[in-house]
């Protein structure tokens, strides 16, 4: 939480002025009982209505000054808190953009979103409240005591006893109940879990007629929660009566001491009134302080969660190699001694004994992967769930870092590229077809900016740039087999896609994500099970179109369907993270057991043909 406070740096003035003005307001509030005392002791005792009138003007003036101070303070604290939160949100968002995939996996999307939204709001609220109240309340409490001392030292001793006593009661009860409330929350989570489980498993539970047992389980958790709540409730119910007794007991003491001192001529009647007034001010502020502490506690918890996110260091250190072409030349000269080139050609993608262990995982997800992909080749990757297909292709754009071995693109290890340069070479079509809210054009242009036409200032484009752009988009749509349905839309490329692409079918979304990758005109195209929502015919047309591209990229096709990868130049068969076979379809059918198993489970009729 402390680390977050740097975001208040730009609001130094506000953070100092806000509590200062609050204190000013409080000081004026502390003067009121003195004025009342004067009215009683001077105005009433001397029967001077004019004096009373003057004092009243003073009181109104104090009120007005207090109001002005307070409004000023509110403004400064609002400004500081809002500015703080804005900056924090910006930093947090920017930071999350830099996290590596494994860090994201660890944190989980849902919790990242919570950090960004409700946690930041809580912290903003906390900062606001602290600036407003954290100084004011103690100031009033101790100010009241100080004022009591100016009136009479003997009577002020009552304050000296009461303030610690009240503090012990208020904060003591809070200290006891806060952890208990956490347990109440845990109890609530428990019955929430039961309810959700009951709903998600409703078919199974009813099939096994478990309704009665579920009821019992729920009732058990429910009763436990109620008992816990009653217990905590009983403790916190003590707070109000006890503080009431203390403050009013102190009032009795003040009255008695006052009576003795007035009798002795040390104090006046008005002074006694003022003392009683100060006593009642203390209670109000202490209760406010207690509530404030709860808010602050929450804010600190949220702040710490945010702090934890910010403390995660960006997972990948970027290299410096900026452009592919430069890398080509430079790499060739720099690494002339490396035997990477086959027949004078550098492989576009090369895996050299690569292994991958996900952080926190016990076993390797990929073991000793070794292959080369040359210009224009198609690599098929097949294997069961969890066999490491996606892990393998994720290493190419450096979404994850190989834990052993080396992945090279154009002969340069991926870690030596800047991420942007590396990823510009690669078009990825992920398993899940994700499109963003916006027009189809905006979505397609995500990975690419055309000269003279940054995607977000649509006006500033030359017509030539626009034509070139349209041509590229058209080509991508044709290849990805999406031209037809895009043309069918009345707005064509300008059709709005709703959030999450809900207004498109699964197949349409998938084809558009393929088009989006093609617009980048990548050197490497990765299709991660991207044809699963397409029918066999479209799948085939797609593959043929990609193959026929002018600048044909290296294509990686990850699939569960044997049909999608049959014609690949090389098929890599993965089994439990290891290469179970590598070669063409015919070769694998001869010598790879895992491949046969997969193939025949999908084509049982073919079994006879080959063995025969």
């Amino acid at each position, binding site marked *: 939480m402390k680390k977050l406070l740097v975001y208040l740096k730009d609001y130094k003035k506000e953070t100092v002025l806000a509590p200062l003005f609050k204190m000013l307001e409080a000081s004026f509030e502390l003067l*009121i009982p003195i004025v009342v005392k004067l009215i009683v002791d001077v105005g009433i005792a001397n029967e001077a209505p004019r004096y009373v009138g003057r004092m009243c003007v003073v009181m109104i003036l104090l009120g007005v000054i207090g109001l002005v101070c307070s409004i000023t303070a509110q403004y400064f*604290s609002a400004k500081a808190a809002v*500015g703080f939160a*804005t900056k924090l949100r910006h930093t947090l968002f920017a930071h999350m953009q830099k996290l590596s995939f494994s860090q994201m996996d660890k944190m989980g999307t849902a919790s990242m979103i919570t950090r960004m*939204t409700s946690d930041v*709001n809580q912290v903003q609220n906390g900062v606001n409240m602290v600036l407003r109240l954290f100084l004011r309340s103690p100031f009033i409490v101790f100010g009241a005591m100080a004022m009591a001392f100016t009136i009479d030292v003997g009577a002020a001793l009552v304050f000296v006893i009461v303030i610690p006593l009240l503090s012990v009661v208020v904060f003591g009860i809070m200290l006891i109940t806060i952890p208990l409330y956490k347990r109440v929350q845990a109890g*609530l989570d428990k019955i929430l879990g039961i309810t959700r489980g009951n709903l998600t498993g409703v078919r199974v539970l009813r099939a096994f007629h478990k309704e009665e047992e579920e009821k019992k389980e729920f009732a058990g958790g429910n009763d436990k*929660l109620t008992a816990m709540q009653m217990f905590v409730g009983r403790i916190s119910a003590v707070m109000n009566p006890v503080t009431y007794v203390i403050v009013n007991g102190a009032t009795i003491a003040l009255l008695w001491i006052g009576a003795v001192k007035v009798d002795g001529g040390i104090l006046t009647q008005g002074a006694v009134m003022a003392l009683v007034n100060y006593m009642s001010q203390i209670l109000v502020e202490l209760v406010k302080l207690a509530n404030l502490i709860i808010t602050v506690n929450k804010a600190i918890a949220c702040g710490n969660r945010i702090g934890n996110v910010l403390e995660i260091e960006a997972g990948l250190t970027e290299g410096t190699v900026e452009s592919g072409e430069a890398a080509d030349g430079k790499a060739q000269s720099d690494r002339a001694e490396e035997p990477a080139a086959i027949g004078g050609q550098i492989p576009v993608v090369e895996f050299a004994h690569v292994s991958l262990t996900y952080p926190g995982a016990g076993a390797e997800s990929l073991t000793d992967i070794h292959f080369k992909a040359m210009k224009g080749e198609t690599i098929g990757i097949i294997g069961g769930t969890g066999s490491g297909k996606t892990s393998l292709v994720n290493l190419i754009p450096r979404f994850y870092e190989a834990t052993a071995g080396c992945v090279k693109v154009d002969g340069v290890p991926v870690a030596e590229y800047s991420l942007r340069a590396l990823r510009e070479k690669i078009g990825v079509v992920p398993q899940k077809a994700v499109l963003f809210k916006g027009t189809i054009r905006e979505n397609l242009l995500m990975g690419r900016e055309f000269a003279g036409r940054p995607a977000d200032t649509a006006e500033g484009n030359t017509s030539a740039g626009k034509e070139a752009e349209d041509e590229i988009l058209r080509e991508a749509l044709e290849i990805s087999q999406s031209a037809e349905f895009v043309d069918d839309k009345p707005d064509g490329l300008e059709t709005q896609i709703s959030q999450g692409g809900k207004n498109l079918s699964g197949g349409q979304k998938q084809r558009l994500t393929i088009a989006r990758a093609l617009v980048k005109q990548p050197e490497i195209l990765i299709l991660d099970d991207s044809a699963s929502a397409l029918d066999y015919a479209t799948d085939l047309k797609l593959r043929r179109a990609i193959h026929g591209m002018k600048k044909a990229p290296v294509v990686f096709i990850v699939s569960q369907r044997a049909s999608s990868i049959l014609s690949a130049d090389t098929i890599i068969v993965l089994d439990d993270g290891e290469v179970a076979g590598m070669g063409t379809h015919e070769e694998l059918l001869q010598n790879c057991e895992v491949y046969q198993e997969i193939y025949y489970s999908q084509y049982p009729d073919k079994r006879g043909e080959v063995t025969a």
Partner: protein
Amino acid sequence: MGRKTDGAESAKQRGQLATLKKVFHYIGKYWFFLIFSIVCAAVTVTLTLYIPILTGDAIDCIIAPGKVDFTIIFRILKKMGIVIGCTALSQWVMSVCNNKIAYHVVRDIRRDAFERIQILPLKYLDAHPYGEIVSRVIADVDQFSDGLIMGFTQLFTGVITILGTLFFMFRENVGITLVVVCITPVSLFVAAFIARRTYKMFKLQSETRGEQTALIDEMIGNQKVVQAFSYEDKALSRFDEINERLAKYSLNATFFSSLTNPSTRFVNSLVYTGVCVTGALSAIRGGISVGTLTCFLSYANQYTKPFNEISGVFTEFQNALACAARIFALIEEAPQPAEPEHARVLKDASGRVALSHVAFSYVPERKLIEDLNLRVESGKRVAIVGPTGCGKTTIINLLMRFYDVDAGSISVDGTDIREITRKSLRENYGMVLQETWLKAGTVRENIIMGKPDATDEEVIAAAKAAHSHSFIKRLPEGYDTVLSEDGGELSQGQKQLLCITRVMLCLPPMLILDEATSSIDTRTEIRIQKAFAKMMEGRTSFVIAHRLSTIVDADTILVMKDGHIIEQGNHKELLSQNGFYAELYNSQFVMSE
């Protein structure tokens, strides 16, 4: 038009009244505590209000040196002590009573809601997202108890405080009271004014927040795509644009709404000053004593407080009533039709299943199944194939009686399933669904779900038969490994095997299997297939088929499309028909060249 909105308004009020009645029905069970609480509240407030009077009386006895009446002061202070003690006690009892009512009403409502969920038709549960129902049972009930029950006490004590203060004040001095009564509403007016003016700012703020959350959701939720396309900078600049706007709106909303407190405090200080002037002047004229003035000053301080609280209570009330209405809507939702009194208890069914003229649809406007006829002899295997959304799962829903047919009938062993108890009907089916569901609990608990008294030997035998024994053995605690909700630690295939083991243990005469293929690797798939085959021996089984082997071997294949059975027969017959089935079947080989 005015009348129309009036009508809507009064309907809304009637609805709220009805909700309130139901709330009272729940509270009624704790009427004793309620009465106790009300009495205590009255006592607490009265005594609290009595203290300033006593203080004033005491101050009147402390006039000047030599003019202090210690005997009376002592008497007054003793009285004060007793009053304080009583107040504290009744305050505590009141809180405890309120807690008792609040927490127990919440408990009762939750219990009723959960029990209702157990008998609600799946039609309702499927139509409502789980999250929504859960939030009704958990969050809405909480909000309701906070808002309504706490609101009640605040409202009640607030009203008594106001009335009590007025009563005491009028008794002491009419003039000063009038000053208080006249100035106080200004504070309410100011608060209302600020609230009205800031409403728009808050709306803007929450709209912008919503916009920002949507963007965060999209970008952070799909961070991997964002990074893959190097979209980070653009995402950040889009974010910043919204963030700047939010900062502006947020500053307005925060600042202007935070004016409420200082403003009302200022009005209160005006009230205080007013009391001071009129009181002091009246004291000079000998109208009231200084003690009475003290008393008035403290009244002036606390008189305005309940007003501010009450205005807050009303908005919470509305909110709480809305929550309550949602919960009651759930609790009062019509349950599944009751079983006839002499419903047959199906025992060891032979497995003859017949569907005759069955019609069914989830929404009346979209017909799904019409005039479906099917006779299955015992021990036969029925495969159901067809494209996604054709109604395959619906057949399961109807067979298990998760849904009731709209027309026609389904019978098992010649008895209409509506004449059979649900429990015994479902006991005769073993069901394995594509979406594997496991309960939070141990592996063993999950397996014995259908046969709670199974011995360890039986469990292990079933696990071996279902090919799950070997992986269960390798779990950290074997059969006693605790699985988190939905079996988080297990792979999809392992979960599927556990679900099969569950059915394998009780092996009912009829089976419903939804073959899952998409997310399971080939090795496990083969094991699952073997387990399925073993189970189906000699049992009537309905299989939603994805695998060719199932289809080829089935006694009857139902080819479904758009809710209709368009073809029916065995593999050979259907292929020779050269219809939709043949097309579907052959499409799998078209691209193999």
